[in-house]
């Protein structure tokens, strides 16, 4: 038979009382901070997920920002490309009118003047600067990309790629090379038209019309590329926003305390602390001395 001595019963009560109050205190802290896993030992297996989620949320927010910044770049390019297209279409209209045999030399001269002004405008557009940077210069965005006569391209053919989701990038710029020079040289095309118009050679003017259309088509295809990219970026922004919402939710499930569960745990432990206290009171009350 195991005989329970005074010190045993007090020790057991003291141990249980301190165990339960410690646990209760832990629960109080969890409830008041709302965090279940505040330190790694609370649940070592969820540490990887918690840190992973936080990482992905930071990355997701960056991707959204990257998409927006790419969209900003592209939409400012788009404005200028619209103007370039206007120039090319007007040049084609002039070409069509100038192919008319009944025009006088002074008419040709007027058209020539207008075309030269347009060529200047095209050069200005090609050297557009946005916040101090040439937007059609590739990587070399601090030096003027187009100059000389005939106009040559001095920028680079690089696209500034922007990461928009893990492992996938979008070009944040259009290079002067692909827009103005290659395969069709817009400046040379205008030059040829000017030469034909100023000479009043209607046959030569007519022969330039196809080339003008090809040049305009080159600008249009860049324009539609921009539109597609912008639409794709919209989709990506939505996707990243949604995925960040999901990640935040996952993080919360891993990290945050379940209040309902905590509160029911708390009442459980409060009850057992209360019971221990009551029993402790009785232990000293139950004494042989009282009956002597």
């Amino acid at each position, binding site marked *: 038979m195991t005989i329970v001595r005074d010190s045993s019963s007090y020790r057991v009560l003291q141990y249980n009382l301190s165990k339960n109050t410690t646990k209760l205190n832990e629960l109080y802290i969890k409830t008041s901070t709302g965090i279940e896993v505040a*330190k790694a030992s609370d649940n*070592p297996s969820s540490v990887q997920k918690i840190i992973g989620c936080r990482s992905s949320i930071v990355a997701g927010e960056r991707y959204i920002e*990257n998409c927006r910044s790419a969209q900003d770049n592209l939409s400012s390019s788009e404005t200028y490309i619209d103007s370039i297209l206007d120039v090319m279409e007007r040049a084609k209209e002039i070409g069509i009118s100038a192919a008319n045999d009944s025009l006088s030399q002074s008419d040709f001269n007027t058209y020539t003047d207008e075309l030269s002004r347009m060529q200047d405008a095209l050069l200005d557009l090609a050297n557009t600067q946005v916040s101090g940077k040439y937007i059609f210069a*590739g990587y070399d965005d601090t030096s003027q990309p187009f100059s000389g006569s005939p106009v040559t391209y001095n920028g680079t053919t690089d696209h500034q790629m922007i990461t928009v989701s893990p492992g996938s990038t979008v070009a944040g710029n259009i290079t002067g090379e692909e827009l103005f020079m290659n395969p069709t040289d817009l400046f040379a095309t205008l030059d040829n038209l000017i030469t034909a118009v100023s000479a009043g050679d209607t046959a030569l003017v007519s022969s330039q019309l196809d080339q003008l259309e090809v040049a305009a088509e080159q600008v249009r295809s860049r324009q539609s590329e921009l539109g597609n990219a912008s639409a794709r970026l919209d989709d990506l922004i939505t996707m990243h926003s949604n995925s960040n919402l999901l990640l935040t939710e996952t993080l919360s499930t891993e990290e945050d305390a379940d209040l309902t569960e905590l509160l029911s745990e708390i009442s459980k432990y409060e009850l057992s602390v209360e019971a221990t206290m009551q029993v402790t009171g009785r232990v000293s009350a139950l004494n042989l001395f009282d009956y002597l």
Partner: protein
Amino acid sequence: MGSLISSLYTGASGIYSNQAAVEVTGNNISNVNTEGYSRQVVSIKSSTSVEQGGLLFGSGSAIDSINRADNVFITKQLIAASANYGEYEAASTPLSTVEQILDIGETSLASDIDSFFDAWEALSTNPGGNSERQQVIIEGDDLANHFQQISKELSDVADSIDSSIESLVPEFNDMLLQIAELNGKILQSEIAGGNANTLQDQRDLLLQKIGEFSGATTYTDDDGMACLQLKNGLPLVIGQVASTLSTQQIDGVSQQVLTAGNSTFTLDNDDFGGALGGLLQVRDNTIPELQDEIDQLAYEIVSAVNNLHTTGIDLEGTAGSDFFSLTPSADASAAVWHGAAASIAVSINDPALVAAGTSGFSGDNSLSLQIAALKDTATIGGSTFTEEYARIAAKAGLFVSGNEDKLLAGLENLNNIQDDRDTISGVSTDEEMLLLIQYQSGYEAAANYLSVVKEMLDTLLAM
């Protein structure tokens, strides 16, 4: 037939015996809350019979002995359980500090790693931007500082373990001396035929405390002296001779040295159990292991970033220099990453020297894209940098939760054994009250008997 006078003596012996028993009971009651006290039991025997007229007459009672109720087996168990509890209890404080250093909150090292690569990602959208470049340097600084801080705090924990051991050693040596002294005193009083109950209680309690501190095991020699030895068999106390434990700086590391007689022994964490073993275990195994992994993480980040950064060209048109600097470990036999976390620093001050591309053009972001992509690259053992940090932090968490579980189990085990000890050696006031009543009534009866004998004597004398 005995004489009436001898009957008086018989009665008196009953009074003496019961009075002595009441005294022992009183002593038990007084010591109900004395730590390590063993209940004492009075053994009353019947006095030698006297032969008269061919008949044997009893001559009353006498106190045979006053023994302590103890069980050597349980005492040993108690020492072992104390050592077990002491080990995990002592380790729990430094371990939880280590866990806080490798935290998993929003300001953890993982967040700094994220922010650093995020700054490169931001730079890629505006590679010529001064503020974006500045940001990369600032985030790099933050990351380097956090590594340094972790490294320093980990070694601070090791240092504080050293000083807490140092502060415990004098008390420990004192306890060893006390055991040796008690061994002598107990032997003397037993040779003199006295009882050494109180001294034995003291000695048992000390053995338990020494066990809790050092994991030392005990055995009793032929003279009944308690001897103590460490886990590796080195003697702490033999009979009346105590060894001395001291702390010395050996090769810049604080080590424990045992002086036994004329010999000295250098000890390491395997030689100890108990609190000392637990603390040394954390200092010599846990902390170096985590420190090494943090070092490796720092080293891998530095190499990966530098390897790419040096392939680039900065805004001034010169080849990219190292982005981070490291002081190589002085110890040639150590791993290459040894000491990396303590010495990592950003070696670039001028934002223009950040290489965002490989062409030197201000719009070239190709390199910043590559560096930013490092955050998703499995670089260390199939993990990315943040995954690796999470693994290290989870490991620290496992150390803590494992220790907590063992501590709880150890405490419950210790409580159980203490209950077992109390069953044998503990005092129950109710039980003592019953004994008190019993002895009191014995005393009363003996006194009544005496008065009857006295009346008989009176009757006889009045004749």
